[in-house]
């Protein structure tokens, strides 16, 4: 009788162990996470004196920034660095303001990636410079300025605004 009871108890324990997982209640919990969107951009120019086109004569086209390389691609006028902290791809655009009513921004242009590639002429609205630029990448720009024949004498200045946004 004792043997029967011990054997039955062992069988019951084994059976219980098998049955417990089936009786467990399964629950699904929704998990969500939000990662901050980081955009970290540094702009630097080649010279230590800002973007300078120097003294220019009227009726001259595509005068280069004084500090940039003109014969090779070694020194861009401006470098837009998409820093490593950035965690999205970025679109880079550029717009500018008129240097003077007689020197419109449409006379200014940029070449992206090399000094002798096709130039994009600027306007007061954003012009695309580069799209879907990955983090830890530099966008290099060579800058030029044309002076019309009727340009007013004197020192004139503009503001170049670089818009960097997440690539949609």
């Amino acid at each position: 009788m004792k043997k029967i009871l011990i054997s039955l108890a062992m069988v019951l324990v084994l059976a219980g162990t098998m049955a417990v997982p089936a009786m467990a209640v399964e629950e699904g919990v929704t998990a969500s996470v939000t990662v901050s969107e980081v955009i970290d951009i540094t702009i630097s120019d080649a010279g230590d004196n800002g973007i300078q086109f120097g003294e220019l004569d009227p009726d001259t086209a595509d005068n280069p920034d004084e500090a940039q390389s003109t014969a090779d691609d070694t020194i861009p006028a401006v470098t837009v660095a998409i820093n490593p902290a950035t965690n999205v791809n970025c679109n880079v655009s550029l717009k500018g303001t008129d240097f003077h009513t007689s020197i419109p921004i449409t006379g200014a242009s940029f070449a992206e990636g090399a000094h002798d590639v096709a130039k994009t002429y600027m306007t007061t609205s954003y012009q695309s410079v580069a799209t879907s630029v990955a983090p830890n990448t530099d966008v290099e720009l060579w800058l030029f300025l044309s002076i019309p024949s009727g340009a007013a004498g004197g020192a004139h200045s503009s503001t170049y605004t670089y818009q960097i946004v997440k690539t949609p």
Partner: protein
Amino acid sequence: MVEMKRIAPVLMAAILLLVSASLVSAQDEAKYNFASAQGNKQLKVIPGGAVEGVIYFYNIEGNRITHISLEISKAPDDWIVEIDPPQHEIQVNVSGKIVTVTENLHVEPSQAVAQEPEEVPEGMVYIKLGDLGYALAKAVHIVVQVPETVEIGTQGDILIAAEAEWLGQTGAAAIKQAREFEFFVEVTSGQTEYTETIVGEVEKTETEKPGAAQSTQPESGEGVKPEVAPPTPPPASESGPVGASLMRWLPAIIAGVVVVLAAILIPIIVRRRD
């Protein structure tokens, strides 16, 4: 050997000179850094309530103070959107010249640190930037207040335009940076407790009933969106709710059979042995 001893100090001096020269030029080169971290873009608010979005600004890659001004470029008409800190004027001494700047905030250059410091300067926070460590940042709060009358389910897009500028630029073309921050605000009931009530079955039209001819594509571009998703066959690994239930209880059924068999067989075996 004697020659080498004479040349060594000269070489050392030349190397030091080169290193210090490169350091000076590195200091001179202006680095205009505009860095932001935007938290949750999806915001929820109850009718008549307010919700807050946050944007952090830091400056660990630059060597000039970044002056940032923000403005609301898009928001639903009757919603109130405020930027904290608001735009204000400050006076700055730039190389001995006092300049007035309009800004919401400015961020001074700092360096990332490996561990989050315990002491944080007033009005600032440390934000984690992956492997770079922690950066000292300033927070801008975008407070969105919706009217009491706004309907639940309404969605509003808020667009904040930011512009960063740097003082003391001497070039013919000053550099600025611009960026936009978007927030999607949804008006909800605010009810946090979960409730679910079956309203009733969706009445099907004659053409939708089983057996009726169905087309998988809308007839025209103005096709009506189905309110209920069409049933999809279960994946090959699944065998429907009955099969799944059976599979789940199979160990328990086997255990039951084992117990019954044991209850019958063990006494018989034990008696035979005795």
